[in-house]
């Protein structure tokens, strides 16, 4: 097992820069998820770690050795592909042992490792089947088994759950986490699904346009995003961005949304924001769960306001409400018994203790 270190990694296809100089340190045993929209360079980064793509610039280190020019087979890595990539003419057992057989491991050792992996993944009864006799979830387990038996320094996962249906995806997600808790191999996992990223990762790397936007624990990314992109990408439904101005009036610092609506900034936050009072265009970032129905007793920092709802979406345990505010479509999460109706007005409350302020020009969270 080993740590992975990327420094100033660049990948160019002709003149297009897919990855634009990223630095990333992955610790031993760590589970790191690269997440971002299509074309953000996350898969390319993973393939460069695997050695399936040449790097244009920078260094990749696995276990302390620079592996820039080391072929994939000598990097001691294992990869799980989106479409499983099982060898169709081999049984599950042959699929899993292929790498070990190529390296001429003793038969007993191969047997032992395959059995162990099959036990971890609960696929013992499938060992003599061919891939075409397996369901999608079973194939994905076999693909993981093929990685586990090799006992590599690093596991690489390239969107392994994208081909599964929603229910199975959630199940396999838990499964992957369980396996990682057992084998503890350093893991780099690529996905475009932020829920997968949040649930699996020790640390999440949010990528966009070939650069890293932010690296942090799921908690850090969710509660203290550094950029507008991260704020909008992590969390579902996405964070609301409402155009606003900062005002430093007699009653203290406040956020003016429209002529009629201002939100006073809680004292705890005011000091941090005061220097930006003069700035022109700002965005108020509020997550949907921080816009709820107004209750009788409002917590400090919570401000009530009237909204005319466009649409409501009852989810069962909560109801999502959508309404326009200063040109932005805003989403809130209210109690299903709060009486939200399509097209009807509702008294809502914004929890400004959890507000974010974003400089619209730079996209940075203040």
């Amino acid at each position: 097992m080993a740590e992975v270190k990327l420094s100033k990694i660049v990948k160019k296809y002709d003149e297009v820069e897919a990855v634009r100089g990223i630095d990333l340190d992955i610790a031993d045993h760590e589970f790191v998820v690269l997440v971002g929209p299509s074309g953000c360079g996350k898969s390319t980064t993973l393939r460069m770690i695997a050695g399936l793509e040449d790097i244009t610039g920078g260094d990749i280190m696995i276990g302390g050795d620079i592996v820039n020019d080391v072929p994939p087979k000598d990097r001691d890595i294992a990869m799980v592909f989106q479409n499983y990539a099982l060898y169709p003419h081999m049984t599950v057992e042959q699929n899993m042992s292929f790498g070990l057989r190529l390296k001429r491991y003793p038969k007993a050792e191969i047997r032992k490792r395959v059995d162990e992996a099959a036990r971890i993944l609960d696929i013992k009864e499938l060992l003599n089947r061919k891939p075409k006799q397996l369901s999608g979830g079973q194939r994905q387990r076999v693909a993981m088994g093929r990685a586990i038996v090799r006992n590599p320094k690093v596991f690489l996962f390239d969107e392994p759950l994208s081909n599964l249906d929603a229910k199975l995806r959630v199940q396999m997600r838990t499964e992957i986490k369980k396996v990682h808790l057992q084998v503890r191999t350093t893991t780099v996992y690529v996905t475009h699904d932020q829920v997968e990223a949040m649930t699996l990762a020790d640390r999440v790397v949010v990528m966009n346009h070939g650069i890293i936007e932010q690296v942090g624990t799921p908690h850090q990314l969710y509660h203290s995003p550094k950029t507008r992109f991260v704020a909008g990408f992590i969390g579902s439904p996405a964070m609301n961005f409402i155009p606003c101005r900062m005002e430093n009036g007699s009653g203290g610092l406040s956020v003016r949304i429209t002529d009629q609506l201002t939100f006073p900034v809680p004292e705890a936050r005011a000091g941090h924001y005061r220097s930006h009072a003069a700035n022109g265009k700002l965005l108020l970032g509020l997550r949907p769960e921080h816009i709820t129905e107004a209750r009788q007793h409002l917590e400090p920092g919570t401000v009530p306001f009237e909204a005319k709802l466009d649409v409501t979406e009852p989810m069962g345990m909560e109801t999502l409400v959508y309404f326009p505010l200063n040109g932005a479509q805003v989403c809130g999460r209210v109690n299903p018994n709060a009486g939200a109706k399509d097209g009807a007005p509702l008294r809502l409350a914004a929890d400004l203790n959890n507000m974010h302020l974003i400089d619209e020009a730079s996209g940075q969270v203040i």
Partner: protein
Amino acid sequence: MAVATVASSSAASRPKYGSMSRDRTWALRWSYFFLVLFAIFFLLPPVYMIITSLKTSNEISAATSPWWVYHPTLENYTGLLTSPEYLTFFRNSALVSVFVVTLTMLISVPAAFALSRMRFWGSATLATGVFLTYLIPETLLFLPLFKMFAMFKEATDIELINRWWVLLILYPTLTVPFCTWIMIGYFASIPKELDEAALIDGASWMQTLTKIFIPVALPGLIAATIFAFTVSWAQFLYPLAFTTSVDQLVLPVGIITSLVKADVYNWGQIMTGALLGAAPPLIIYAFLMDYYIAGLTAGATKG
């Protein structure tokens, strides 16, 4: 009465639902009609050959029905199978075909693998070039080949004309380009992740080819083998041009040159010879068809 009304009204509103299956029925009828037509069209010649091969020369020239054998005889078969000439043709054909098929596969499978998977400078152009080579008709090639053989003889004093083994070099010029092209197509249909997985598992290019690509592309390999065998077994022009002595001839040319004496056509023996000559490809087809099944890649990637 009421029930009858309901039944008739529902029947009146239903024909639309039935039209789909009626269309299918008619489509099926038409396809069977044409299939039978084609089957008759293609089976008549061999049937006629079998009938003729069972007749004596006298009966063939007699004014009886050509579609019936009145005095069946196997003398054409015994005559040919005991004739050393015919057996030599057969041996030459078999040797040439087996060697050509082997040689073709040894060249075109690795070539196709390299052209479809290893991205090297000019690989795409080369792949197209291989196919274009196949488009040049053989009739254009045998005169330049003659010239080349003559020059080769002048330079090295080795005679290439009228030697059956020269066909071993000539036939691959026809089979290799096409088989390579077929195999490129089959290899291209194998998902890229499969060789990447093999690469990460530690397989060399050669191991990826032999342990992954060849087993997965087996139906393609069989198609290419059948093609190469058919071409070398049935090739007529090159052996006609390049071999002349009776002991150097292959089957198709041998039948024509030795069984047609001046303007005397020994029809019974010609038909028998052709039938026996057609037997090996038939047997090989029947044997390989079992393996020639599509969908062998099923299960490799997502369902």
